[in-house]
């Protein structure tokens, strides 16, 4: 009975994380298209949600590799997974509130690593894996996208310099629909699988499915795809505003450049087995497309805040994950601790939402 409740709590929390992953990362896919008026905001998030949903069904091959090489898999319990998810959700909500794009994947890894550290000490975490799979890719992704998007926009400006602005703008807006669609599909494929992996791990730990030769159950795929699509449709408008208008004031060629380079870098990296964060790539691409036109076109203060959020993602989510794990252990190894934390979190979020709904809409 206790393990059944714990399983339900972990599955519910994993789907909540998937939802925050969706609305946090909506900006990666739609911000540039909305900013350049390639597509209306609600239509953009609707298309992105549908493509995220479809993308979740494209491949299931990496669903079982969550946390591989970063934490010692033999020491992972459902409490650790739960605490890691809460750490990631907390970081996603905090950065969304501040309007800062940050990596949901890194937040999940940080949360689980922090909880594993609290549970088993340094032996529970593979620090080489953290360096190779999180920290170095976090440096490579924005710098690579910055350089490629910068070079691309210089080539594009040269090519279309003598065209009338109207046809060129319409053309690049069409291109943005194409590259945005590819990004949304890739995001659904990559990110929904993380949640599928977490739920599958919990089902294995519970004994509901065998540890060897298992397949991700269909209901898990449908639930994860639905949660990320609903989150995407909800739209993280604060982050969309930051990425679409606050880093640079972009034209359609810059938006096309950032988005196309973003999709290309993510797919190329994913194909050679060097996965990069979508958020880091798109943010770097936007900055590169702006800086190539004029260095002063980039609001470096905003860019600095975003970089600071990236640097803090791992330690902050790890600290929350460790704290939550420590708290749940006060109530033993059963379902009581996670159930209390899940209930308290749900109540706090509902109260915050109600308070916000009661506030009068400020004129902008």
């Amino acid at each position, binding site marked *: 009975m206790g393990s059944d409740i714990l399983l339900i709590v972990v599955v519910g929390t994993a789907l909540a994380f998937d939802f925050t992953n969706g609305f946090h990362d909506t900006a990666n896919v739609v911000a540039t298209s909305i900013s350049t008026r390639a597509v209306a905001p609600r239509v953009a998030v609707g298309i992105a949600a549908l493509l995220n949903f479809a993308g979740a069904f494209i491949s299931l091959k990496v669903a079982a590799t969550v946390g591989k090489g970063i934490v010692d898999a033999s020491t992972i319990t459902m409490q650790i997974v739960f605490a890691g998810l809460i750490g990631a959700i907390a970081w996603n909500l905090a950065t969304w509130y501040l309007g800062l794009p940050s990596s949901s994947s890194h937040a999940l890894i940080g949360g689980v690593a922090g909880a594993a550290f609290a549970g088993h000490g340094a032996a529970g975490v593979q620090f080489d894996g953290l360096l190779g799979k999180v920290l170095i890719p976090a440096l490579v992704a924005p710098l690579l996208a910055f350089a490629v998007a910068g070079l691309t926009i210089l080539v594009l400006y040269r090519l279309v310099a003598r065209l009338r602005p109207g*046809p060129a703008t319409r*053309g690049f807006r069409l291109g943005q629909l194409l590259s945005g669609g*590819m990004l949304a599909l890739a995001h659904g*494929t990559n990110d929904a699988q993380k949640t599928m992996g977490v739920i599958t791990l919990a089902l294995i730990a519970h004994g509901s499915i065998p540890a060897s030769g298992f397949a991700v159950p269909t209901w898990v795929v449908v639930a994860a795809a639905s949660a990320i699509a609903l989150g995407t449709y909800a739209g993280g408008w604060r982050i969309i505003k930051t990425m679409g208008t606050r880093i640079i004031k972009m034209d359609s060629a810059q938006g096309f450049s950032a988005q*196309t380079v973003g999709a*290309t*870098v993510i797919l190329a990296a994913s194909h050679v087995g*060097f996965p990069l964060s979508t958020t880091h790539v798109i943010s770097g691409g936007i900055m590169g497309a702006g800086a190539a036109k004029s260095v002063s076109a980039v609001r470096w203060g905003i860019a600095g805040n975003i970089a600071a959020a990236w640097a803090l993602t791992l330690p902050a989510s790890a600290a929350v994950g460790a704290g939550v794990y420590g708290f749940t252990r006060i109530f033993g190894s059963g379902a009581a601790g996670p159930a209390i934390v899940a209930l308290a979190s749900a109540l706090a979020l509902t109260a915050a939402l109600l308070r916000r709904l009661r506030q009068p809409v400020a004129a902008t």
Partner: protein
Amino acid sequence: MKPIASSIVDGHALLQVIYVSLLAGVGIATAFALAVLGTTRASESRRARRTSATVGYGAIALAGAAVTSAAVVVGLVYMTQK
């Protein structure tokens, strides 16, 4: 002895990511821009009744669109193979 850095980071994969991203990123965006350029110029040439220019720019537009379409298909195949 294997250097520590190479055991942490797959240097070969990293280099591949850099050059594939550079070639494909710049290449695909350029192909699409050529499609935009070709379509616009072909349309202007057709209105000015310049047949050879219309055919030339039309060919550029078609080539750009073909490369872009092929890139989309390759991207979809990559996604399914992950």
